[in-house]
């Protein structure tokens, strides 16, 4: 399988026949593009951009009067991102392509160094994303601890009001950035090709690009605090956005950068799912998790450009002195609200749908029943994706909307609960009369369903104008979306990690520690966030560091629970380190007895995923059925017979079924 890197390069000009080594292979490890070069490129790029911004704008009146050069900040951050991407090697191929060169043969790497490089192996990208997402999660989690520490007392303060709101904004933004890629990045990239029977992604360089720019976004948003933070919370509302200090530049550039990464991730996965499904994998046989990822990709590719453009407008307002969001100069602060939420509400489903996909994929395995109403589930996800474009104005019920328009958007918001209800009913139907196996992934699935029920029902309350107007901007709203995002998505993410980690690592996770993780996570999650519904109904506003004295007991329950909730993540970390490195136990090939295609290939998954491209024969949900048909023909007979393509291929003979003598399986259609 390995490629001889001394073969003739494809990048030679016609007539240029000298055999040479691939240029990258001659460099030492440290000299090849890697994360160290990316950091160096990012720093150098930032310095150059900042210097350039000072050259351009230091003479501007507003810069001299305020002492704040947003042009330098924005150029510094933008050049820093370009330098980072250059350092990791993401620009090598696009530049070589301008000279007419096509990609060099990919050399599969086995060294651990590959995790710190740009790679075309979707499994490595999936693992990189997992680490990246957890980094976001833990950073945002630490900031959450800081918030809850401040809220332990209504009068004694750890932070000043400005610092507090900066922490709140940073926490929210980091978590939203994380959540938008939490499942699509790690599990989507790792699993989708395996689940559809593909050997590769459609656009592997775009996939790798999406991860590394995602990490550049992490670095950019971290610069917000040293640049003065941003006082707007994660929603970045104008006119505060236009007036804020330099940290706002990090927010705008960071969100735009992350947005580009999200678009790239969705673009690649959508093309892969549409075109790289194995022969026989009709749309009726596509795993439900893949349907969820496809629906999410539609949202990622179509909704996210609005965020990027809104970010661009914000940057122009702060640097080129345009007035998109400045009422006094012909702009409108409500324009930001509209653009932001036109992305922001589909974003909610970018976070929710993959979580549901994981749960619906896992439930049949642990109930040993077929997935209930498979087609309804797929249709529900597409319905949610479509309707999510028509509900954004419910975020503006309190401001920025013609009151006559409220009933329309109340109706569309309530409508979206119908396909969402489909998804929930599908899970309940699968659980109905099942003999459930309470393994750790299943526990997290059940936890997700419990939490999402609370988050979903309170969401229906909030879609009604009278309730929304009453509790707008309160902790009730905060509790609602934490129940849907953390209670839904993060529980589902851990369900997925516990379920697929044996496939990814080849090691068995410790069952006791997994259970401890679940129960502490579940109990303290609910103890943290349920009281916040109550304090919200009692009138405690979000983003304010002081509150009424009588709300302290509920706040203290929430804060103390939050610390335990944060600590519960250590069970996962300890479990992972213990099970994978300290006391590794080889995982069985198919520990959960799943019928999924991803479990049919070897562990660890070979570079090319499948020895032969499988021919899919049926959907993977025939659990509990006697004589259930095989899911796929993996070509084992061919492999055993050694009948692989060892003879040169005539390019004219690549028509379908043209070489049936070599492959007795059904023709590829």
């Amino acid at each position: 399988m390995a490629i001889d890197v001394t073969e003739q390069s494809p990048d030679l000009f016609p007539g240029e026949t000298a055999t040479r080594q691939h240029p990258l292979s001659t460099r030492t490890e440290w000299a090849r593009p890697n994360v160290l070069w990316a950091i160096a490129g990012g720093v150098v790029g930032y310095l150059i951009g900042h210097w350039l911004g000072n050259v351009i704008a230091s003479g501007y009146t507003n810069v001299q009067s305020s002492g704040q050069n947003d042009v330098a900040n924005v150029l510094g951050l933008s050049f820093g991102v370009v330098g980072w991407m250059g350092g990791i090697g993401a620009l090598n191929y696009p530049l070589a392509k301008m000279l007419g060169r096509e990609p060099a043969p990919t050399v599969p790497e086995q060294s651990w160094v590959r995790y710190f490089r740009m790679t075309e192996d979707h499994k490595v990208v999936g693992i990189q994303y997992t680490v990246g997402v957890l980094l976001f999660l833990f950073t945002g989690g630490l900031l959450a601890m800081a918030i809850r520490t401040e809220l332990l007392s209504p009068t004694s303060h750890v932070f000043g009001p400005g610092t507090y709101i900066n922490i709140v904004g940073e926490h929210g933004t980091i978590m939203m950035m994380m959540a938008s890629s939490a499942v699509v990045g790690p599990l989507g990239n790792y699993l989708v090709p395996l689940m559809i029977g593909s050997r590769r992604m459609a656009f592997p360089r775009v996939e790798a690009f999406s991860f590394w720019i995602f990490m550049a976004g992490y670095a950019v948003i971290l610069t917000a605090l040293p640049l003065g933070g941003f006082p707007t919370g994660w929603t970045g509302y104008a006119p505060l956005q236009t007036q804020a200090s330099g940290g706002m530049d990090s927010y705008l550039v960071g969100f735009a950068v992350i947005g580009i990464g999200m678009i790239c991730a969705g673009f690649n996965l959508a093309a892969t799912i549409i075109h790289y499904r194995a022969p026989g994998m009709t749309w009726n046989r596509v795993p439900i998790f893949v349907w969820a990822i496809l629906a999410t990709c539609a949202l990622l590719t179509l909704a996210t450009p609005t965020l990027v453009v809104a970010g661009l407008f914000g940057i122009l307002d702060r640097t080129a002195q345009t007035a998109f969001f400045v009422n006094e100069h012909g702009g409108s602060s409500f324009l930001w609200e509209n653009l932001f939420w036109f992305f922001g509400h589909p974003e909610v489903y970018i976070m929710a749908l993959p979580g549901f996909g994981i749960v619906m994929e896992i439930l049949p395995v642990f109930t040993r029943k077929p997935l209930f109403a498979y087609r309804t589930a797929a249709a529900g996800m597409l319905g949610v994706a479509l309707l999510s474009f028509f509900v954004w104005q419910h975020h503006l019920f309190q401001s920025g909307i013609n009151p006559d328009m409220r009933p329309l958007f109340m109706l569309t918001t309530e409508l979206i609960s119908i396909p969402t209800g489909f998804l929930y009913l599908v899970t309940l139907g699968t659980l109905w009369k099942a003999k459930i196996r309470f393994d750790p992934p299943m526990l997290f699935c059940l936890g997700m369903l419990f939490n999402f029920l609370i988050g979903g029902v309170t969401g229906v309350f909030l879609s009604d104008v009278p309730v929304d107007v009453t509790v707008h901007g309160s902790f009730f709203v905060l509790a609602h979306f934490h129940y849907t995002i953390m209670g839904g998505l993060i529980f589902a993410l851990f369900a997925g990690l516990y379920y697929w980690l044996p496939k990814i690592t080849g090691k068995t996770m410790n069952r006791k520690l997994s259970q401890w993780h679940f129960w502490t996570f579940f109990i303290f999650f609910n103890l943290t966030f349920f009281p916040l519904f109550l304090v919200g109904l009692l009138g405690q506003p979000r983003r304010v560091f002081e509150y009424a004295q009588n709300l302290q007991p509920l706040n203290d329950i929430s804060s103390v629970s939050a610390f335990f909730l944060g600590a519960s993540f250590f069970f996962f970390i300890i479990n992972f380190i213990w099970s994978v490195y300290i006391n590794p136990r080889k995982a069985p090939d198919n520990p959960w007895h799943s019928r999924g295609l991803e479990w049919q290939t070897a562990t660890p998954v070979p570079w090319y995923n499948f020895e032969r491209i499988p021919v899919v024969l049926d959907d993977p949900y025939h659990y509990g059925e006697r004589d259930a048909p095989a899911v796929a023909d993996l070509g084992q007979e061919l492999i055993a017979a050694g009948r692989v393509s060892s003879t040169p291929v005539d390019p004219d003979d690549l028509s379908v079924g043209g070489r049936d003598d070599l492959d007795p399986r059904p023709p590829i259609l």
Partner: protein
Amino acid sequence: MGDAVADDKTVTERSEDFLHLNETPEEIAFELRAQEGALWTGGRLVIGIWTFAFASLAFAYFYLRSANNQDLWRPHDITAPTAAGAAIFAITVACAVLNLYGVRRFRSGVALDWEVAGWTSVLGTLLAVGLQIWQLTDLPFFPGSSGYASCLIGWAALNIALLLSGLYWIETLLARQARLRRALLEDGGTAQSTLPAARMFRASMEGCAYYWGFIGVVATLFWVLFYVL
């Protein structure tokens, strides 16, 4: 002739290195079709991405226009320099038409016409981008003086990005064509060869032409918004 055969092998080997790792012919054919399809879908997805980006700009345009805060949507009906605007529009649309025409000729087997049309488009696009930048230095209003002024600056930024993306795509295809032309001479050139490299090239070229058609439509719509309405 010997060189041509060697060149041909180079291209074939490249494709085989990339695609034929221990694969049956059916698998190779399957992946080739998948790649062609992914290029087709990818091209359309890129158009979808840009559509939503420009729809956001159009939303801002109409939102600010209808809100007309402080009567500052477009005071005194002031307009950006119309000559430059018309020139940018005309050049962009001409490039789009040239691309579409070039691809039609390419499909007829006349690759040279497509190359000429492509290189002309490259030059035209560079000119359009240059004009767009120059127009920004010659505006008769301050960027933040009105809603119209803000939207025009936003349009300029997005239009430059869109034109550069189209420029990049067509330039990379032309550069690739320069490398493949001789290599595939024996096999009918990029227009007719059945080699994987040629098939991928044609799929990308079709997507590029479609993309340029989209650029032409965007140029027309926003020219109407900013200079006609």
